[in-house]
């Protein structure tokens, strides 16, 4: 249809009703030594060694930063095995046999309020770095790099939008742990000397607004507001959230810090709270199994839990004779996986299992629904044509690199052309051509 599309049926109302299963009995926990951002890594434990919760068991290394790996349970290290990561690659994982006691490591002890009061920007950078905190919204971008800015920060925006369909992790977090979010925000505001905090949530979530506003009554000293933003997709894209929440337009490709704004996902702030207050790394996260091909369950699971274990716990797949598509993350931007042999890491929020539907690509009829719907105001169809005719100059002029791969162009196309894939190919083509 020749129109701008922003609303995607999200199927969240059923998911929100599901109870949360707190899964603590994982027999084995797995810790990938490398990740997509960190191609190298090493362990500092040996087989048979006993480790405790919060103890560092290895380090992931990337070209410009390092990330410690922490044990999320206590028990014995039993070896190394290959499992799949977010991108479907087989990677080495340290195996920890869980003794179910969850003994805390000696380094894990609470900071007093007085200590927290004195934390500076540098201290916060060190803490988040030592605890290996990353953006939990899905980017996996190291939090300390975001904090380590020289700019003057005016506003901290908290992203609780979660605009992707079928995801309720952030929703559950805001409903269940509002104080941890707000405390995390307060710590960041204090350390960054930011006078203002804004929590962005979807307009339609009145219940979250109530919960947050009620919790906020205890934090009168701070200027923290709940901003209701649009229900549309991709409202959760950070520039869109900032624009809707505080009215600051940040050009694409620029750091938000330059405009005095820092934006964090709600779950990232909870991890900041845990790291600052309890000296704990991220131990658990909400994990949703959803989609029509699987029994839907909301889990609260330890980092390192294998997804196939959770699938078994949930009751397995539905209609196994129908071919399935498995997605880690949301159905619009999530990563594809061909196996459920995946380890829950910081950035894996959900697994969606859909019955496979094959789309037959019809010719483009120039309806321009993709052009109308594009949130970054580029023209997917023209880029596709430029790619087909092999014109790198045109791709450059049409600004394909602005594309955030939100998936809307493919979603809206009445001819079912996979435009988002063409965008990826175009970017790759441009890189190969050396532009």
């Amino acid at each position, binding site marked *: *249809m*020749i*129109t701008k*599309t922003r609303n*995607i049926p999200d199927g969240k109302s059923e998911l929100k009703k599901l109870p949360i299963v707190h899964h603590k009995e994982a027999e084995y926990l797995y810790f990938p030594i490398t990740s997509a951002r960190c191609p190298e890594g090493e362990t500092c434990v040996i087989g048979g060694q006993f480790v405790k919760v919060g103890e560092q068991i290895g380090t992931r290394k990337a070209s410009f930063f390092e990330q410690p790996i922490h044990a999320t349970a206590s028990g014995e290290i039993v070896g190394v095995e290959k499992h799949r990561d977010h991108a479907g690659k087989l990677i080495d994982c340290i195996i920890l046999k869980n003794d179910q006691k969850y003994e805390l490591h000696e380094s894990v002890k609470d900071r007093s309020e007085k200590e927290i009061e004195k934390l500076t920007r540098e201290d916060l950078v060190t803490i988040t770095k030592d605890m290996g905190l990353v953006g939990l919204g899905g980017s996996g971008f190291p939090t300390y790099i975001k904090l380590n800015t020289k700019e003057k920060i005016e506003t901290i925006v908290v992203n609780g939008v979660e605009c992707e*369909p079928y995801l309720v992790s952030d929703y559950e977090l805001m409903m269940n742990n509002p104080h941890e979010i707000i405390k995390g925000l307060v710590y960041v505001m204090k350390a960054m000397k930011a006078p203002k905090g804004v929590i962005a949530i979807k307009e339609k979530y009145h219940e979250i607004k109530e919960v947050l506003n009620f919790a906020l009554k205890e934090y009168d000293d701070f200027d923290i507001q709940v901003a209701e933003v649009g229900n549309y997709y991709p409202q959760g894209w950070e520039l869109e959230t900032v624009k809707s929440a505080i009215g600051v337009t940040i050009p694409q490709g620029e750091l938000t810090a330059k405009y005095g704004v820092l934006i964090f996902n709600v779950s990232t702030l909870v991890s900041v709270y845990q790291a600052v207050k309890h000296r704990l790394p991220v131990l658990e996260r909400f994990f949703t199994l959803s989609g029509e091909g699987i029994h839907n369950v909301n889990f609260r699971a330890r980092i390192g839990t294998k997804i196939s274990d959770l699938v078994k716990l949930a009751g397995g*797949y539905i209609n*196994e*004779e129908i*071919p*399935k*598509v*498995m*997605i880690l993350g949301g*159905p*619009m*931007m*999530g*990563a*594809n996986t*061909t*196996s459920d042999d995946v380890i829950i890491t910081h950035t894996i929020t959900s697994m*969606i299992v*859909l019955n*496979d*539907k094959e*789309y*037959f690509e*019809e*010719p*483009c*009829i*120039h*309806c*321009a*629904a993709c*052009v*109308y719907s*594009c949130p970054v*105001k580029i*023209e997917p*169809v*023209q880029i596709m044509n430029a790619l087909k005719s092999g014109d790198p100059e*045109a791709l450059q*002029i*049409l600004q394909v690199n602005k594309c955030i*791969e939100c*998936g*809307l162009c*493919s*979603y*809206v*196309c*009445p*001819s*079912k052309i*996979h435009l*988002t*894939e063409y965008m*990826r190919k175009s970017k790759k083509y441009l890189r190969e051509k050396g532009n």
Partner: protein
Amino acid sequence: MQIIAKTSPYIRKATSTKRMMVDVLIALIPVIGFAIYKFQFDFILRALVASVLAVGLEALAFGLMKERDETWKDRFKKYTINNIVPPIITALIFVLTLPSKVDYYAVIIGITFAIIIGKMIFGGLGRNIFNPAGIGRVFVAVAMGGLMGSYVDNVSGATALTNTWSPSLLNDFSLVDLFIGNVPGSMGEISALAILIGAVYLVVRRSADFRVIVSGLLSFTLLMLVAGLGLKHEGMDLINFVLYQVLAGGLLFGLVFMATDPVTSPYTRPGRLIFGLIIGSLVAIIRLFGSFPEGMVFALVTANMFVALIDYKKWTTNVYTKKFIIGYSVAIVVIAIIVFLGTGGF
């Protein structure tokens, strides 16, 4: 369990090209109904001949335009409903723009030209640069003017828009007749009411972009207003003149059913406004300074030629920039001045 590897996004909106095409057919129903009521078998037979021929020719061309070593079965693997509904639409629109007594020979030649030269030569659905029905109509008008049958209706001795300078038709018919379609003229173009019902359906269903219709209609109305001021008709007030110009002839039909064809319109919102402006002003200019009753299709086909230019990579954008707004306004003013001067306004 079989697991399929795919790339994001994994879900799709419940729309389809097929549905958009069928929507156009549905929107044509009032116009077709009126044509059947008014012209009976004159219309039905011509429409049938054209439709059958269009579908057949498209299928033939579809089969021929494949690799030499493919078997005939393989060639039609991708033959879908989208190779059947669009040629029917083309055929119906083409016939609806013709006068009722047109020779069958002209119908056959016109639809053949429309499907083969207007569409399939470019590669079929989605690749053509000219509106197929439009180009077929232009071909018939230019090459076979003699076979068109008389525009002059036996009853009235005149047809809408034979001489635009003095809309003599209004002496015989009222504006209400013109609106309902109680006048002589091409089969689908006479009833503004039927066309508007179709237009509302198309726009509500979002199967057509209202920007082309609105931009075309407004620019045309404005220019006719200016022309009316310039002409200073005796015995006819300005409002009647403008309304007459809007309702008579193929303007409404062309804007609603031909100009909104997405394949031959630009990709962007500003582009579609410009496209509408080009059509609206060309129709006005052809009506005022030319003598072709087919002004609408000429304007459309000419505007189709500008689409590639409007969509040129260096300036195409879906944002209403300041440059666009200024350019668009200046263009309207300039054309209005030309029309005013041309009609002897000074």
